């Protein structure tokens, strides 16, 4: 753990863990319910990447925005998307965040600031710019965070977005979760630079390379970038190094992954490591954290049970929300 002078106070440290354990347990339950056959769904596990949005989100307020991607449930939970409507959406039910019309790749919950979840690699960034543009024109202090993966830094939208954000000094933080693989292809094989953070220089913005599995380092990087954006000083590119434990799409055989590297990454699971650090440093007792974890697990199980019992959308919903005033879409 990188003990910086900027170590946040206890409440923030505990809050970060609360977000991490929520995302970790949510993922464990998601994989379990898929395997049980009760909820067949397309699922991109974020297991292993929980530290990043936990450390970013404790620097954000409810009014701040995020745009995330299909592997983004950890980002949503960290920002405060409620479990009940999230799970109802995953189950395709009428009570879901999007009335069952979006599903796992398109969770949206403006109330908690989760404005867009995109299934298109690279597309969180151009939209994040627009949200930030609105804040800038209105003179608001709101910050927008765009999450994306390492492979998205090779698509045109990344370059167009960083350039525009920098030219206009938009209040946006670009958070790249570098989990070492783009779908099945290793980072090195598809990316011409060793560090995506270096690409910030091409757009005249700070490019921060940080261990995204180190909560304190990640917290410090996020804090600086969010403060910079809020102060009107422009965007920051953060490359947060991490690793995804369960392949591209859950259920893929991950034969393309380096076994030893994966095993080492899983052995260094950042969530239990942080838990132990909190205990060792006296921020929390084992009992306190166990209680928190148990309560979190109960809430997740209740959300899943509730979702599986929730009503399906009425067939008439197929035709609504196409336009502001519905017309015959049949």
């Amino acid at each position, binding site marked *: 753990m990188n003990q910086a002078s900027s170590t946040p106070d206890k409440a923030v440290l505990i809050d970060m863990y609360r977000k991490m354990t929520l995302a970790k347990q949510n993922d464990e339950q998601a994989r379990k319910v898929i395997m049980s056959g009760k909820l067949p769904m397309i699922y991109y596990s974020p297991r292993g990447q929980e530290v990043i949005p936990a450390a970013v989100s404790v620097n954000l307020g409810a009014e701040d925005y995020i745009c995330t991607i299909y592997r983004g449930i950890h980002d949503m939970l960290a920002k405060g998307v409620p479990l009940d409507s999230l799970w109802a959406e995953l189950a395709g039910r009428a009570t879901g965040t999007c009335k069952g019309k979006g599903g796992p790749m398109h969770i*949206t919950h403006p109330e908690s600031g989760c404005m867009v979840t995109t299934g298109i690699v690279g597309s969180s960034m*151009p939209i994040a*710019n*627009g*949200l930030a*543009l609105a804040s800038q*024109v209105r003179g608001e202090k709101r910050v927008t965070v765009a999450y994306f993966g390492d492979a998205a830094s090779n698509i045109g939208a990344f370059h167009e977005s960083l350039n*525009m954000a920098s030219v206009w000094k938009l209040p946006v933080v670009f958070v790249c979760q570098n989990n070492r693989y783009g779908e099945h292809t290793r980072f090195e094989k598809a990316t011409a630079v060793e560090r995506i953070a270096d690409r910030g220089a091409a757009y005249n913005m700070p490019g921060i390379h940080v261990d995204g599995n180190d909560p304190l380092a990640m917290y410090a990087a996020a804090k600086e970038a969010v403060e910079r954006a809020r102060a009107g000083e422009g965007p920051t590119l953060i490359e947060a190094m991490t690793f995804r434990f369960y392949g591209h799409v859950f259920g893929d055989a991950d034969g393309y992954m380096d076994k030893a590297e994966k095993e080492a990454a899983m052995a260094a699971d950042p969530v239990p490591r942080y838990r132990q650090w909190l205990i060792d440093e006296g921020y929390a007792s084992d009992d306190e954290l166990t209680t928190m974890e148990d309560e979190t697990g109960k809430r997740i199980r209740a959300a899943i049970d509730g979702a599986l019992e929730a009503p399906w959308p009425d067939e008439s919903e197929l035709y609504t929300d*196409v336009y502001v005033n519905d017309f015959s879409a049949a």
Partner: protein
Amino acid sequence: MAQNKVTTLQAINTALHEAMAQDDSILVFGEDVADPEEGGVNGATRGLSTEFGESRVRSTPISEQAIIGAAIGSAMAGMRPVAEIMLMNFSTVAMDMIVNHAAKLRYMSGGQTAVPLTIRVTTGAGFGTAGQHSDYLEAWFAHTAGLKVVTGSTPAETAGLLKACIFDDDPCIFIENLPAYWQKGEAPEPGQTIPLGKARIAREGSDVTVVTYGPQVAVAEAAAEQLAEEKITVEVVDLRTIQPWDRDTVLNAVAKTGRAVVSHEAVRAFGVGAEISSVIHEELFDQLRAPVQRVGAPSTAVPYSKALESAFVPDADKVVAAIRKTLK
């Protein structure tokens, strides 16, 4: 009344000024649109940045994905952006933003987010700009649920429909015909807005109905003039909103004459005309006195040479020929 005539370009410029003055949430951005860059390559946005400031009126990098992304995000946050994509062909560079995002976010979010943006595009053959600067691609957008596709046929129509798009709560693709920019017509009434989804009868007639839009309205009117000499009267329906289109007005007009031609500058095959023709056949089969005819460009790229370009764009003679087929 020559002093009341304005060009389409002037009408667009006036509409943008009126809208921006009326509502602070309206933003205008696109390549070269601010006054230091001369208010757009054709001057459509001239004067806006001087009047409303370069926070609300911004020249952008040549980055169509970023332009439309900025429009989508700001629209979701409550603004009413008017993004200019200089030429309709350049919208192809931003298709992910337009088709996967602008069109679908209301639906995919279950109605939680709205994307009230307007994308102004210019296009049309006639100036020798060939295959990558002149295409009419409205069928692509009309085929995408969630988008509204709108175009005017005169300066006043263009101004009124543009304002309706700007104040509409859905993403609108607003198509402007480049050759029509410098054509004059009656000036729009100040403050006039024309409702979306409502076609207009541009010319009344009782023998054949021509359904069309954009620059082809004038072509259909010229065809009608020719046939009037033979005592054949042609009704011309200007669709105005290509999607969602005004089925009631079109079907009533065709039911009246029992004969229909659908015409557009876009390539005929798989075009908007195919959909409209199909619906007319489905709904009015027993009232039709002849099969519906379609007029459109051939399935080629827009050619450069004046000789070829003139052959590519449907003219009054082609519309007359199609009308005659329905009269056989």
